[in-house]
């Protein structure tokens, strides 16, 4: 996994081997260990989303649960 995820070493592509601008562009834009980079940040963003989404919907779940329990208690 390590080898496949590593960006190419610039030294391997220097000196008389033509232009490798495409590879250099890839090297400049893609973070090191992209799999772990994206997984880490998707996890953090997912948590932020859950706080708002589950926070909002969960509040309504609690209200519904209390309403049902209240009617059970009275009934």
């Amino acid at each position: 996994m390590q080898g496949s995820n590593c960006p190419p070493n610039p030294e391997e592509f220097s000196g008389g081997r033509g232009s490798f601008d495409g590879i250099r562009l890839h090297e400049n834009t893609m973070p090191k260990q992209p799999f772990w980079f994206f997984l880490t940040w998707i996890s953090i963003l997912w948590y932020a989303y859950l706080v708002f989404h589950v926070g909002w919907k969960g509040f309504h779940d609690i209200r519904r649960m209390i309403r049902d329990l209240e009617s059970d208690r009275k009934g």
Partner: protein
Amino acid sequence: MNSFGWIDWGIIGVYLVGTMVAGLAMRRYVGKVEHFIVAGREMDVHLGIASLAATEFGIITAMYTAELGFKNGFAGAIPGILEAVAMAVVGLTGFVINPLRNSGALTIPELLDRKFGMQVRWLSGLVIVLGGLLNMGVFLRIGGEFLMIVSGIPLKYLEITMTVLLLVVLVYTTLGGMLSVLVTDYLQFIILGIGLVVVSVLVAAHVSWASLVDGVQSRLGDGAFNPMVSPEMGVSYVVWQALNQLAVVLTWQTVIQRVLASRDAHVARQVYIKTSFFFVGRFLIPAFWGMAALVALEASKMPTNSLHAMPTFLKTLLPTGLIGLVIASMLAAEMSTDSSYLLTWSSILYNDIIAPLRKKPFSERQGLYVNRVIILAIGVFLLFYGLWYQLPGRVWDYLSITGNIYLSSISVLVVACCYWKRATRIGAVAAIVGGALAPILFLIAGWSQYVAIAGLASFGLAAGGMIFGSLLTPAKKLEQKLAG
């Protein structure tokens, strides 16, 4: 950087009062044992997600996953990825959780009783409680260590701080049961989520991604990114973890209690599907903090205990105001975990160990009273075993292998109970004994380098015990015997 100011105390105070008020407010709705143990089965999807996520993220989780990141890099997050996959697959297929929720049982041993008889119910209840309580025993101390290090409060106040915290949890859990746990879990999930996101952004701002990757690579090598080539992991470890995480999803009682509290099986499956990805972050986010501690913490500040590296790093990082938020979020993590675990193990003790011994069933009033007394008794056990008693040796090895004693056998029992008509009581007993054998031998012999082999052997012996024990027992004869 660290200065614990009045703003921090204020945030913590507001959080604690809010939790207490919400927890106590639910007390009035507890009229039956079913309300107390499974919230009257009134739980909907989003409340279930909040409760499951908050329960399964305690301070101890942050501590040992950060340690995994500190020692094993990104590869330390592999159990979380495996757990997420297992939970998503079980949620999508309804494997085990569909029949379990549809059975109407209050606990897993109660379901096992219907297939294998009372002795298996009692024996499985005993194994579950034993494994669960031994696991939970160390939560308070490790949670306290985090709080003391980050807040800068001297370690000598650890016992008294955590005793007060436990008392707060005991009050609302004892009075409101699962209803209080669900509502307080919801609040704690919000606080915990905010704290985790804020700290992660702060860590990322402090340690650049490139320097983190380079630092981890130079210190831990290729194994930091690939568990298969990690010297402390490897293929057998990953396979064992895959089995372990599947067993957790199918049988860990705090997880299963959310299945049983759901309105129906569809809600239970939705909770699993929508919570599954949470478990990636549950391991990866604290591991990220642990790796940042490894790379950024000055050598002079590096603690000798690797478990303390992450909180020591956060202490140097967090400004006034944010310390209060982080401590409140970790208090939320600790309290939501403690309350759920207290309720879970007490419900097994009541429903599967004490109640079956009585000829005359408990009345609802007696049942509630017994449940509350058991929770208080577990609280006392936790204080003396987990807080005042110092465990010798490495905590994580101890936790994982003791958990395996019950996870392997009960997961085999539950699967056989739901899907294998030929399974018999003898097979169930053989699975429980077989599943416990390898981990116990491992613990006695102390072969720490063979932890994955012992874990795999535990699953193999549990499955073998069930298959051969069942096939060697004439099913018809056994049924007649049970009927007689």
